[in-house]
Structures are given as C-alpha cells and as structure tokens.
C-alpha cells in the first residue's frame, strides 16, 4: 500500500476508530451498520465494490461497503450472521449504537471498469452488498445496468433498495431460475458490457460457466468471492522457514498458516479461505505446490514463487520468511 504521508486526511485508509451510529436488522440474519469516524474527520471516498476490514473479537473480517463511494461522510456495511460463531456473530451480538470498532480501508478489489458501456450485475444472497454499491455508483454517474438478484424468499437484504436503484431487476428464488436468467441475460447484452457477480461459490461457478458459454471473454466476467468451495484436508508436508532453517510439519487438515503460527512464525491473514490475498508468502523453493486460492493468476501460479498459506499446500516448501 502506498504511504499516505502527503495526502489529505480525506484519503486516510489506515486503521481507524469508528463509532456505530446505527445497527438495524434488514433481515433476520443480516444487520446493517452505519459507521461514523470517531475523530469526526473526513472519510475516504472509494470505488464501487470496495470493502473495509473490521477488527472483531474473532479476527479481521472484510465487508463490502454498500454506498456509491462518492464523497461519503460515513461507511455502511451489511453483515450476514455466519453459523461459525466468528466475527459476524460478534458484530450481531456485541455491537450496539455507540460501540467503537476499528476498521481499515476502504480497499478496492472489485471495482467497475472505467470504460464499460453497460453493466450486468449479479448478486446471490448477501453478495448483494457490493452489487448495490455498483448499482448506486452507476445511478449516480449516469451509467446503465441490468441486475440479477438471486435470494431465498424472506432472506433478501436490500431488496427494496436494489429495486429502487433505477435499473431493471430480475429476481430468482431458485437455483434453476437463477441459471435460466443468467443464460438469458448473458445472451442479450450490448457490446462493451462488463458483468460483475458476488455470491456463493456455486453461483459464481455457474456465472462463469454460462458467461463463457455465451461467448464472453474472461476479461468481461468480474467476480468477488466471499467463500470458496470446501477444500479437502490435503496431505501432510514439511515447510522450511528460510531465515531460521526451522522445519515445520504441516498435518493433513491443518493449514500452512496455522502450522507456521504454532511454530511462532506470524503471518498476517484475513479471510483464511484463499480469497483476500493477505497471507501471501514468498516461496524460495518447493518440490511441488498445490495452489487452492482464488487470488493468484495462472501466470503467478506458474512462477511458483508465492503461496496463499491459508489454503494452499505443497511438498518440501521453503517459505521466504
């Protein structure tokens, strides 16, 4: 990240305290938070589809901002309660108006293409949050879009807001209908359209498959993952820490990240599912690498010089730490 030393305070994206100004349920499982800067200063504008990182008692979680990103005076996020008892449960159970949270960002990893002629926005479940941001951005700046929103009846966050965003919305409440809609809408978009999807892993696979089948090049199919398919535990292997020569045994079912951390080698991490890229570590050498993340490009995988240690594995891996 570029040091912000010389920038105006309005561009601060480092760690900072925010006060919860409102915390309202938008569905039984989703809570919408309004966060105001505790120091009262300006907050950084952001590109549509950006997220902030929230320090929770159970770790650092990334949440998409739901605004259009232009001249914000607050940040708003919507948090689905996950059943793993992690950070989202803490946000649901422990935060109340007046609570102080530390957040970092915004960070853009799902930004709109500056030269798009039209957008096909696809949301599945809580994946609506960055899609709402894209829709609001396009509405604000005079863009055009079409939206597909797939949800379970009664569990759709921001349904009214997305309907009111000013663009046609196609809604689906079954997997079959979502598939049908995707195929139908991919086949009928003007040249120059870019597609953006956020949702569960299975929906994103379908999105990619149908987009490619409709003749769309990869460069038009943007997506944001918040969850990867369940991974198998993998084979045990040994990692060597280059600076100390320490050898760390990584058992099946244990991540390289956890094994390193147990051995006293701390690696910064966030999503712990191969999505965010935070835990990337250099690889000095390896007999083989099994990349299971969604961050590295094919070229970066071929280079075999780095690894997302939260999900990826290998054999005889010497990490550059």
């Amino acid at each position, binding site marked *: 990240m570029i040091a912000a030393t010389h920038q105006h305070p309005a561009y601060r994206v480092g760690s900072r305290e925010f006060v919860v100004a409102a915390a309202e349920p938008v569905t039984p499982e989703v809570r919408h938070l309004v966060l105001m800067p505790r120091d009262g200063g300006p907050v950084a504008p952001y590109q549509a589809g950006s997220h902030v990182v929230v320090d929770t008692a159970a770790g650092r979680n990334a949440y998409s901002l739901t605004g259009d990103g232009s001249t914000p005076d607050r940040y708003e996020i919507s948090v689905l309660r996950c059943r793993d008892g992690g950070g989202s449960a803490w946000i649901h159970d422990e935060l109340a108006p007046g609570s102080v949270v530390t957040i970092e960002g915004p960070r853009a990893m799902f930004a709109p293409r500056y*030269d*798009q*002629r039209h957008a096909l926005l696809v949301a599945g479940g809580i994946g609506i949050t960055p899609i709402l941001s894209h829709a609001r951005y396009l509405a604000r700046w005079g863009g055009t879009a079409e939206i597909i929103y797939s949800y379970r009846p009664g569990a759709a966050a921001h349904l009214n807001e997305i309907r009111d965003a000013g663009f046609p919305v196609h809604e689906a409440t079954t997997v079959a209908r979502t598939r049908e809609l995707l195929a139908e809408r*991919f*086949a*009928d*978009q*003007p*040249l*120059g*359209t870019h597609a953006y999807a956020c949702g569960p892993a299975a929906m994103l696979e379908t999105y990619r498959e149908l987009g*490619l089948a*409709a*003749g*769309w*090049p990869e*460069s*038009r199919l943007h997506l944001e993952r918040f969850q990867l398919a369940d991974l198998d535990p993998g084979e045990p292997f040994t990692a060597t820490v280059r600076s100390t020569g320490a050898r760390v045994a990584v058992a099946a079912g244990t991540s390289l990240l956890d094994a390193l951390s147990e051995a006293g080698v701390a690696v910064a991490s966030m999503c712990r599912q191969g999505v965010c890229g935070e835990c990337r570590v250099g690889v000095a050498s390896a007999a083989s690498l099994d990349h299971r993340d969604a961050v590295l490009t094919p070229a970066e995988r071929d280079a075999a010089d780095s690894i997302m240690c939260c999900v990826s594995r290998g054999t005889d891996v010497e990490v550059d730490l």
Partner: protein
Amino acid sequence: MGTIAEVAPGGLSLPVWPSEPETVDATGRSYLLLGFGPEAASVVDTWARDVGALGPSTIVRSARFDPAAVTAALASTRCGVRIMVAGPQDDVLMTLAAARESGAEPEELRSFVTRTDVLPVFCAHCRATNSVEAVPGGIAVCPACATVLDVHPHLSAVRGSFLGSDTTARELT
C-alpha cells in the same frame, strides 16, 4: 490478434500485421465480418465459411470505411460477438478503433490487411483524418489543408490513425 499485433516490439508502436488471415475464434456466439475493397472479398468469404454453424454472422462489405455504417453494424451486435475485419490498412485501423470505442475487448477483434501503402493520418493543424499514401516516419500532404506533414511513427490505437504535424513547425520565420 488484431490489437496485439498492432503493437510492434522495441517500443515502436507500429502495426505488425500477420501474413495470413487470422482464423475464426470458435468461442464466439455471433460474428460480425467486415470487408473493405475487392481484395478483402475472398478473405471474408473464407471467414464466413469457417464460421458456418458456430453462430449467426453478419457480413458488411463496402468499398471504403464509412464511420456511420460501421458504428451502426457494431451497435447491432450483442456481447459474445467476434469482430473480424479485412481490407486496406487504413480501413482496418479505423474500423478497429471504432470497435474499441464501442467497447470491444482485444480478444474479440481479429483482422487482416490486404495492402499497407495507405495510412490514416490525423492532421494536427486542420484536425481532419484522411487516408494518404505514406509510411510511418515519412512525409505526406494533408488532403484537407495542404500542409506538408511529418507522419509520426506511432499508431494511436484509440484514433486508428497516425499523427501528422507541419514539417516546418520547428523553423523560425
């Protein structure tokens, strides 16, 4: 690939054209085939035959690049289309620029040039773009304002043309 091939190695951004027509990309779902001049006819015929049952194709044949006609043809396409252009260099460059302006990605464009003795030159003085017989780095007369132009050896992929500026612009009078 049409756009990639236009960027020469060594920092000189000059078109480098394939010696044989590029093949049809079978991953497309529809095809727009544009041919300029008589030499392009057989290239477009071959492409149309190779497209076959891959998807519907639209064929536009004309003597010269006509911005309105090309823009209309592009506007009628849907995402998933592959755009293939054959003809003299000036027509092909201007058509590729129009396709990019309409939002086409590099992977969606393919092209073949039947002759390279003509270039589209943008005159910095009268701001007209005209096709002239010239080579990059050479000299041409602007057909619109009669200024004698240095044709700069750089293709603007956005404009589909080369910059021309007055050969005497650096001289004090």
